[in-house]
Every structure is written in structure tokens, then in C-alpha cells.
């Protein structure tokens, strides 16, 4: 292409360069994009040859909503380790064709076989050499758990609940009868109605759950004709499945949105050649951004997987503005180079500003305390910048490359369209323009009343999230979740850890009580006629009385004293010293808090309180274990289902429990030093708001019922983590929104060099956000994570139309001399561009409503709403306000 020297307008050098070297720009864009994609893609195929490059990582772990060093996560990881808690795949089994549910020989036989199969699902990991897969020793199934019962004639019996598949119906019912009697199993292994069973399969790594699930399903298929239904769920399964669905969404939803936008653009502009450039631009921006995301080692998360869907409308927005404007101006100017220069001059500043405001809106997400949201915000900002860069270079370059003949045909086709033969939309816009001018007050009043309704809606907003509800209601995961929560005590686990608050130690004199216990030990020794008992115990007594310092130090001193005693004493004093040692040992065991009856009674009472909370299905605790064993030791009498009276009795009950097949089960409830215990709470709902209520109620209970032994309680488990990140999200998003709102307002004031114009340009954005959230509150949709990030998207999109509209309004008013005269022209081309834009991009996102993942539906629906609302408010309310107070806004104009 030859250099033009007869340009009538000067233009930004970047744009000039682009229209002078269109091929170079196109090649540059292609090369950069392909390079990015290659660097992102190659290491996935050749990880060994390219170890320095990051591979694509999918992250579906809701825990990652919090950064790895977040208190709640660190504590959760620590407690999971201390209580040896693993991630669990849950297999629920129901049988609706049998009166006894699954408790018939055939079904139980299948369950027994499935259990044996699951027990074999482990292997040596290739990298670590450690066992990976199912953790057999912790698997809960009728075949692997103990039945504890008193076996008649004063004997206690530990036997497998179901050592082999029952052969008769009586035996099958016996399994049910036994399991119902053991609190730990009732409502967990066996359903409350006694019809269903659940197998809990712990796994070494949650990322194996999809694989394990597939293997289990294959084994179940081998059973052939069966009456029972198998439901496989559990959080790791949900997460893994979500990852798979997420990829499908990225592969399906984004291209469908692209296709719809493509068809809409084609319908508006009629010329394929015009339509291809925004599509190329959208592809380039979405792909480059995702490539950069992967290259920089960030993960594909539920949030980051939506990046392409957010970038595409924004990328297309600017291109559509340019094309729309070009489309109109070319008819008049009839020279593509002159037209594009004119259009770019007109749009350069608004486009730059809208880009900056969008970047500000999304970049502000980096200030939220939620890492996936930070990544999301930062990368959309990057994508938006790319979109601007290629919009001002590639789009003009593309247009000037279109052969003149093609453009000529374009003119002939459209020159017939005179202003009085406008399209339906053109006529509508013209009427709208007149209406806003003539009935400005009505428009403003209507707007104000909608704000009132929106404010009411916002006051009704319900903050809540639940990762399981990210699936559609009819998704197998949701179905399994529903069935299991109907039958069992709940599949959502929360854990309450109780431990001694070491930072808050009490300063009670420990000596008097200790000396009292020593006196008892001494009497005991004298009764046993141990040699020199009186003498030796008096020495211990004075040792304690004369001690100055901590209890800890005393314990050390006493042990030293004891060692010396054993060394130097005569042989016949050995038993006496042994008795002293017994005393010292039992003193040190007083630190084993969760062998003390008062601590266990508190735990039992707390548990009783928790069990009565609405969403709590059941709970399990150390006190249940102790009560059950105690009952079975004492002939199975119901009144013996209690905590024994002394710590020794508790210890001996517990050691009896450990004489079972699964002694390690105890360590899920208490640490071996008996200083920390975990209370398992099963919730029938995974809603954060329900968990919040439980946490609040428990906090209230604890404050009105002070805990013994200076204990403190702290929640852990994923259900709790969800609550923590949700709280952070609500406050974080509010701060981030406020911050970016102020930044954008300042930018607007600077752009228009006027406080009132700046404020005015924020009105469509404010109204859109208000209406969106008001609507969410009114229809009762939960304010969850996808909803939270919509506020940023609103800043990104809603202010754009206001900028375009208002900058033209000022230009046209200056050009035509008055606001009244400017209305007409303003509502032809600029209003048309905004309307087309809102419709094309808005409709483009409606296909997301068909997605099987709820966050995508939410985003799809609300992007469309934001665009329509922002378009409508920009076109109706802004001119109405100006019409009411033209003097305020056009003071300078008058003076000029």
C-alpha cells in the first residue's frame, strides 16, 4: 500500500502506522498469539523435554479459595493430619424394591463384594513408592467395621459386623439390628430409616477420586441385574467431576457464545468481511490471555475458566464501536482511509478511557483476599489491554485491507437508506431521543422509583454459597447428594476441635489438690504395708510443698527425685518407690484432658446441643465411643450409656475399645495424648449460611456454658473453610468495588474535566449495579461467588456506554450549538452503535443459560442483563438528566 499524503486529519501515530502497514500488524498479531499458544501448549505434550515451562494445571479444590498460608487452611491441614482424616468417596446404596431396603442377602452380598474390590484399589505410587489409592484400614463398610456388643454370660464381644455376606434374610436383618445399636454407625453407615447403607472409602489423594469412582462403577456394572441403586459422591468426587465439566464448558460455552455473537454481527452489518475482524480479535485476546495464564503457572480454576467468556464481550465491544461508526461514516466520506482516520480520531479517547475504566474495575479484584478472584481480575485486565491494543491497530489495518470494490458494493447497497427510511431500531431510537427530551422528568422519576425497588431488593440479599450447588439440580452429583442427605445424617462434614488454650493459662494454685491426692496415695501404700511408706511419701510431700515455680518444673523435679530414689534405695523399698512413681505418673496423666469425666460430659452436652440444631443430621464424638463401650461392658443396659465416673474408668473403657479390629479409629476423635478432641458434625446442607448458623449457635452455647480445663474450640473441615472464604469474599468484594468505583469516578472527572459530567457518567453504572443486585435480592438468588464478581464486570461494561454517549453528547452539542439540536443526531449513529453493541454482546451470552454448571448460567444471564440495563440507562436516563439541567452541564458551552 502506498503512503497517503493527502490525509485531511492527523491521527495517533500508532493508528497511522497500522493503516500504513496492515500486513505487518496482522502478521505481528498472528506471530505473537501463536507463540504464546505454543509456549503454553507444548509443555503439556513434552513435559520432560521442557521442564522449565509450566504445564496446564486444573484446580477444582474449593480450599484454594483461600491462600495456602491462610490461618483457617493451615489449621485445617494440621488438624486433618493430627486426626488422620482423609478425603472420602461415599457410596450410598438404596433398594426401593425390597421391604427391608438393602438388608437382604443379595444386596448385602453385592456390597460385600464391592467392599472387597475397593479394599484392593491401592497401588505403589510411581514417583513416591508410597501406597496410593484406597486407605483400607479406614474404610467404613459393614464388612470392615466392628460390632461391639456384650456377648452374654458377662462377656464382651468384638467381631466384624458382617464378616461374610449373609446367607439368609434373618442374618441380613441381624446386620441391621447390630449396626443400629452403635451410635457411630447409626446414621452414618446405616441410614436413619434402616433402609440404606453407605460405604465410606478414604483415599490417599483427592485427585484419585474420579479414577476410583470409574473403577467402582465398572465393578457395579458387573453385578448385572440388580435391585439396588448406587450413588457415588463425596466432596473429592464432586470436585473432580466439576473439573471435567469445567473443561467441557470452556470447550462448548465459549465457542457457542462466539457463534451467536458472530450471527448477530452478521445480521447487523450484513457483510461477512466486517464481522470476521471482531471475531478474530475476540479469539486472539481470549487465547493469548489463557496462554499467558498457563505460561505464568496459574491454574484453571472455576473463576479463571470463565476468563475467556468475560474477555470476549469486552474485546468485541470496541471493535463493534469502530465498525459501527465506520459503517455509518463511510457512506458520507466514501474513502476508506479517510473514514477510518476520522472514526479512529473520534473514538480513540473514549476507547482508551473505557479500556482504562474496565482495567480499573477488574484489576481492583486483585485487592480481594481470594486468590482465584485475584487471578481472575488480573488476567481479565491483561485481556482487556490486549483487546484495546489490537482494536486500535488490527481493526483499522483490517479495514484498510478490504479491497475498494468490496466496499463499493457495500455503499450501493446502503445508499438507499435515507434518514427518513430508517430501520425499525433507527425509528425507535429517534422516538426515544425525543421522549427523553420532552418527558425528562418522567424518565428521571421512573428511574428513581426503580432505584427504590432495587434498594429494597438489595436489603433482602442472602449471602450464601455451596460448591455442590454449582452443579445443575439434575446432575448425578446433585442427585446422589440429595438421596444421601435424605437417608443419612448428612454428607457435609464439619469438625469442631477442642483443645487446651495454652496462651490463656489460668493461675490457680495446683498444690493443695495435689497434696490431697498424695495423701490418698500414701494411705494406699501404708495399707499395702510397703516398706518405709510413711518416710518416703513424706519426702515427696515436702518436695511438693517447698516447690517454687511452674507445675511443669515440679514434674521434672519429681522425676529426678524418683530416679535417685530408685537408684539409692534398698531392695525392700522398691515397691514403695514404685508406688511413688505410680503417683507421679497419674499426676502427669491429669494433663490427658479427654480422659477426664468433666471434659467428656461437657463434650457430650455440647454434642447434644449441636444435634438439636436444624441442619445437623448427627454428630460423632469421643464421648459416644466411651458411652457405647461402657454400655456393652455393663451388660448392654441402656442406662449405662454414659460417661464413667473416673478418669481411670474412662481409660479402661478406652483400652477395652482398643482391643478391637480397628483400634486406630479412636485417633480420629482424639489425639494419643488426649489433649485434643474432634467433634464430627454431619450437616444435611452444604450451604454456607447453614454452617454459619451452626458456628454462631455453638459460639453462643460456649459463651453461656464456659468450657472446663481452659479449653478452646475451633472449627475445621471444608464446610468451615467455605464459610471463611465467603466472609472474606463479601467484605473483599465490597472494598474492591468501592475502590474501583472511586478510581473510575476520578478518571471520569478528569476525562470530562468536570465534576458534574464525571458524576453523571457514573449514573448508568450505579443504576445497573443497583438493579442487578436488587433483582438478585428480590428473586431470592443467593449472593455467591459468581454473583460477587459481577459488580466488577458492571464497572467494566456499564461505564463504557456512558463514556461513548456523553463524549458524543458534548461534541454534538458544541457542533450543533445547543443540546436540543444535538438530540436528533445523537440518537442516530451514536445511539445506534450503543444499541447494536448491547444487543450483539448481550444476546451472545444467553447460550450460557444452557450450561450444566450454575456459575456459567449466572454469569451468562447477568452479563446480558448488565449490557441491556447499561445500554438503556445510558440512552434514556443520561439525556433526561441533561435535559432537566442543561445549564449545569453546558455552562462552558454558553460562555464560549
Amino acid at each position, binding site marked *: 500500500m502506498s503512503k497517503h499524503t493527502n490525509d485531511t486529519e492527523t491521527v495517533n501515530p500508532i493508528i497511522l502506522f497500522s493503516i500504513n502497514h496492515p500486513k505487518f500488524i496482522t502478521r505481528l498479531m498472528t506471530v505473537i498469539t501463536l507463540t504464546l499458544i505454543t509456549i503454553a501448549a507444548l509443555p503439556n505434550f513434552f513435559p520432560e523435554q521442557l521442564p522449565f515451562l509450566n504445564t496446564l494445571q486444573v484446580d477444582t479444590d474449593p480450599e484454594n479459595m483461600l491462600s495456602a498460608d491462610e490461618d483457617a487452611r493451615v489449621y485445617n491441614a494440621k488438624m486433618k*493430619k*493430627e486426626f*488422620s482424616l482423609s478425603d472420602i468417596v461415599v457410596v450410598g446404596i438404596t433398594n426401593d424394591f425390597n421391604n427391608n431396603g438393602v438388608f437382604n442377602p443379595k444386596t448385602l452380598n453385592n456390597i460385600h463384594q464391592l467392599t*472387597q474390590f475397593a*479394599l*484392593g484399589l*491401592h497401588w505403589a505410587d510411581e514417583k513416591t513408592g508410597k*501406597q496410593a489409592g484406597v*486407605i*483400607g*484400614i479406614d474404610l467404613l463398610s459393614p464388612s470392615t467395621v466392628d460390632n461391639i456388643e456384650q*456377648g452374654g*454370660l*458377662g*462377656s*464382651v*464381644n*468384638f*467381631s*466384624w459386623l458382617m*464378616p*461374610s455376606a449373609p446367607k439368609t434374610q434373618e442374618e441380613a436383618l441381624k446386620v441391621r439390628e447390630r449396626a443400629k445399636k452403635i451410635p457411630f454407625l447409626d446414621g452414618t453407615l446405616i441410614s436413619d430409616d434402616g433402609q440404606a447403607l453407605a460405604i465410606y472409602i478414604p483415599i490417599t489423594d483427592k485427585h484419585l477420586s474420579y479414577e476410583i469412582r470409574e473403577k467402582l462403577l465398572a465393578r457395579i456394572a458387573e453385578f448385572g441385574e440388580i435391585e439396588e441403586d448406587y450413588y457415588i459422591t463425596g466432596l473429592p468426587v464432586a470436585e473432580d467431576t466439576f473439573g471435567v465439566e469445567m473443561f467441557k464448558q470452556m470447550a462448548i460455552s465459549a465457542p457457542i457464545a462466539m457463534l451467536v455473537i458472530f450471527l448477530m454481527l452478521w445480521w447487523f452489518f450484513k457483510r461477512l468481511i466486517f464481522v470476521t475482524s471482531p471475531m478474530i480479535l475476540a479469539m486472539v485476546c481470549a487465547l493469548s490471555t489463557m496462554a499467558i495464564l498457563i505460561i505464568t503457572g496459574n491454574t484453571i480454576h472455576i473463576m479463571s475458566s470463565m476468563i475467556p467468556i468475560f474477555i470476549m464481550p469486552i474485546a468485541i465491544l470496541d471493535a463493534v464501536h469502530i465498525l459501527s461508526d465506520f459503517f455509518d461514516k463511510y457512506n458520507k466520506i466514501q474513502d476508506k482511509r479517510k473514514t477510518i482516520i476520522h472514526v479512529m480520531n473520534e473514538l480513540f479517547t473514549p476507547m482508551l478511557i473505557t479500556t482504562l475504566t474496565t482495567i480499573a474495575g477488574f484489576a481492583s479484584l486483585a485487592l480481594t483476599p481470594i486468590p482465584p478472584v485475584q487471578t481472575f481480575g488480573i488476567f481479565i485486565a491483561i485481556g482487556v489491554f490486549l483487546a484495546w491494543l489490537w482494536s486500535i491497530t488490527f481493526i483499522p489495518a483490517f479495514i484498510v485491507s478490504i479491497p475498494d470494490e468490496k466496499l463499493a458494493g457495500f455503499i450501493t447497497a446502503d445508499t438507499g437508506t435515507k434518514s427518513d427510511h430508517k430501520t425499525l431500531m433507527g425509528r425507535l431510537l429517534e422516538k426515544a431521543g425525543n421522549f427523553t427530551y420532552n418527558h425528562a422528568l418522567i424518565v428521571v422519576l421512573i428511574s428513581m422509583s426503580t432505584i427504590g425497588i432495587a434498594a429494597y431488593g438489595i436489603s433482602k440479599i442472602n449471602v450464601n454459597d455451596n460448591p455442590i450447588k454449582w452443579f445443575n439440580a439434575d446432575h448425578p452429583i446433585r442427585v446422589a447428594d440429595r438421596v444421601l442427605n435424605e437417608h443419612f445424617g448428612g454428607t457435609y462434614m464439619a469438625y469442631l476441635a477442642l483443645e487446651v488454650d495454652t496462651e490463656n493459662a489460668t493461675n490457680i494454685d495446683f498444690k493443695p489438690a495435689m497434696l490431697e491426692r498424695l495423701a490418698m496415695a500414701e494411705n494406699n501404700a501404708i495399707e*499395702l504395708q510397703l516398706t518405709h511408706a510413711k518416710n518416703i511419701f513424706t519426702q515427696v510431700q515436702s518436695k511438693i510443698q517447698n516447690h517454687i515455680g511452674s507445675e511443669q518444673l515440679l514434674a521434672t523435679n519429681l522425676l529426678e527425685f524418683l530416679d535417685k530414689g530408685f537408684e539409692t534405695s534398698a531392695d525392700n523399698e*522398691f*515397691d514403695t518407690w*514404685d508406688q511413688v512413681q*505410680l*503417683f507421679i*505418673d*497419674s499426676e502427669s*496423666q491429669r494433663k*490427658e484432658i479427654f*480422659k477426664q469425666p468433666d471434659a467428656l460430659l461437657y463434650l457430650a452436652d455440647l454434642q447434644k446441643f449441636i444435634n438439636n440444631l436444624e441442619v445437623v443430621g448427627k454428630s460423632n464424638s469421643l464421648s459416644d465411643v466411651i458411652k457405647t463401650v461402657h454400655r456393652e*461392658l*455393663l451388660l448392654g443396659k441402656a442406662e449405662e450409656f454414659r460417661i*464413667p465416673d*473416673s*478418669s*481411670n*474408668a*474412662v*481409660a*479402661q*473403657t478406652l*483400652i*477395652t475399645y*482398643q*482391643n*478391637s*479390629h480397628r*483400634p*486406630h479409629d*479412636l*485417633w480420629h476423635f482424639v*489425639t*494419643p*495424648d488426649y489433649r485434643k478432641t474432634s467433634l464430627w458434625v454431619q450437616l444435611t446442607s452444604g450451604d454456607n449460611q447453614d454452617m454459619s448458623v451452626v458456628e454462631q449457635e455453638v459460639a453462643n452455647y460456649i459463651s453461656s456454658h464456659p468450657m472446663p480445663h481452659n479449653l478452646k474450640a475451633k472449627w475445621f473441615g471444608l464446610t468451615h473453610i467455605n464459610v471463611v472464604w465467603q466472609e472474606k469474599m463479601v467484605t473483599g468484594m465490597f472494598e474492591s468495588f468501592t475502590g474501583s468505583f472511586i478510581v473510575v469516578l476520578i478518571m471520569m472527572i478528569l476525562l470530562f474535566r468536570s465534576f458534574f459530567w464525571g458524576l453523571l457518567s457514573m449514573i448508568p453504572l450505579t443504576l445497573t449495579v443497583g438493579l442487578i443486585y436488587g433483582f438478585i435480592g428480590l428473586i431470592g438468588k443467593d449472593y455467591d461467588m459468581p454473583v460477587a464478581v459481577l459488580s466488577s464486570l458492571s464497572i467494566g461494561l456499564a461505564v463504557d456506554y456512558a463514556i461513548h454517549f456523553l463524549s458524543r453528547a458534548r461534541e454534538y452539542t458544541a457542533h450543533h450549538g445547543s443540546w436540543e439540536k444535538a438530540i436528533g443526531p445523537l440518537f442516530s449513529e451514536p445511539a445506534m452503535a450503543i444499541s447494536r453493541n448491547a444487543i450483539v454482546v448481550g444476546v451472545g451470552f444467553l447460550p450460557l443459560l444452557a450450561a450444566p454448571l450454575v456459575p456459567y448460567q449466572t454469569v451468562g444471564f447477568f452479563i446480558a442483563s448488565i449490557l441491556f440495563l447499561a445500554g438503556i440507562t445510558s440512552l434514556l436516563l443520561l439525556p433526561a438528566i441533561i435535559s432537566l439541567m442543561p445549564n449545569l452541564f453546558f455552562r462552558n458551552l454558553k460562555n464560549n
Partner: protein
Amino acid sequence: MNLKHIILALSCSLSSYAALAAPTVDEIIHKTNYTSYYKGQDGKAKVKMTITDAQNRIRSREFVILRKDVPTTDDLTNHAYQGDQKMYVYFTRPADVNKMVFMVLKHIQSDDDRWLYLPALDLVKRIAASDQRTSFVGSDFLYEDVSGRSLAADKHVLISEDANYYVVENTPIDADSVEFSKYVMYIHKTTFLPIQTEYFDKQGAKYKVYTALNVENIQGHQTITKSEAKNLQTGGSTILEYTSVAYDTGFPDEIFSERFLRKAPRKYLR
């Protein structure tokens, strides 16, 4: 067989009775059974049990173990040594299980009788004999490891041997009654002590290993004084250390009775 071999065989027979002729698997397992559970007419030891879990958290227990055989001979011929046994396990530590007693009357022909005395609950409980393969007080040893598994419960095959060990594979006759598919013993050729025993689960994976860590000669009996059970599934392990081991102390039969559960025979437990 040439002359050289005959001379070699003769020289071996002179140096070691055991190598006089290659013993049959039956002889091996009986000798092992004897050295493991039947040495002397009675035996006594103080035992320190240290249970370590996968996170290196340690619990310990101390007890005194008394054992008395019903047969009055150690003669291996015709399995005369083998017979009913009585066992009394008296716990001393931790303090909260002090005076707890576990007693076994082991019968060759029928199920064992087992009792547990819980002093804090003042409760004597019989433990049902149905399953002996449960944990012994929360350790990685099972009740059956303490009292000894009946030789008749398994099929025994000598699968290999080397300079030091006979390797005997044992498979349960009633596979449904146990959680293992087989166990393999490495039996020391001269002492017939099982130096290592490995258990395999039903999927064929090794999941438990017992190892003798220390052997001492006590009153002419080669005695394991330190042994370990390692649980490969949990990552935990238990070590037993035996002190004050004595054979043929001559304690009376009467202490192995319900009466002595509540009132421990202190004099024999020192």
C-alpha cells in the same frame, strides 16, 4: 551319593544335632512353636510396650506377664511339650490402667477362655473367643500373637532355606476366619526362633512385619527380648522389650483364676 557327601553329612551331624537330617516342616514349626511359647514349665517377664504411630506419636504401656504350661515336659517328641497354657498379664502403667489384668486359659482342643479385669469399673469381663485377631490393648500385636496361633489352623510349607533360615509359608485352612491370605516365617536354623514373620493381605500385599530385634540366652533358653510389629498399612509400629525374664520360677496354678484377677498375686509380679 558319593563318599565326599557322606563325610560332609557326618561332620555336620557331629557339629549340630539340628542338621543331622534335614528336618521336616512339621519338625520346624513345632520347634518354633516350642521356642516361642513353651520354654520351661513357666515363664515370667516384665514388658515395656511402646506404640508409635505414623506421626511418631508415642504411647507406652507396662505389664508383667506370667505363663504356666499344663504339660510338665519340654519334650518335643510326639509334641509332648504342647498342651494347654495359662497366662496372666498384669498392667502397671500408664497409671490409669494400673492393676488391669488380662488372663488367658489357652486350650489346644477348644476355644481359649479369656478374661479382662478393669479395676476402675470393678469389672471382670470374659472376652468372647469368637475372634482372636483383634488388637492387643491398641498395639500392633494381636491377642493371637500373645497367646500363640494354633498350628492346626494353618497349612505349613517349607518354601526355601538358606544358610541361616528356614522359610515357611503358612496358609489358613479357614480363609474366611482371618484377614490375611498367608504369612511367611523366617526361622533361624539353630535357635528355631522366628526372626521375621511377614503377613500378606487378601490382595497379596504385605501389610505386617514382625521382627525379633534382640535375642538373649536366659537360663539356657534363647529368648527374644525385643521384638517389633510394624503395620505397613497404618505406618505405625509397636516394640516390646522384655526385662527380668525368668523361667521355671514355680508359681502356683491357683493364681490363674478369677479370684486373683481382683486381688493380684503381688509377690509373683515383682
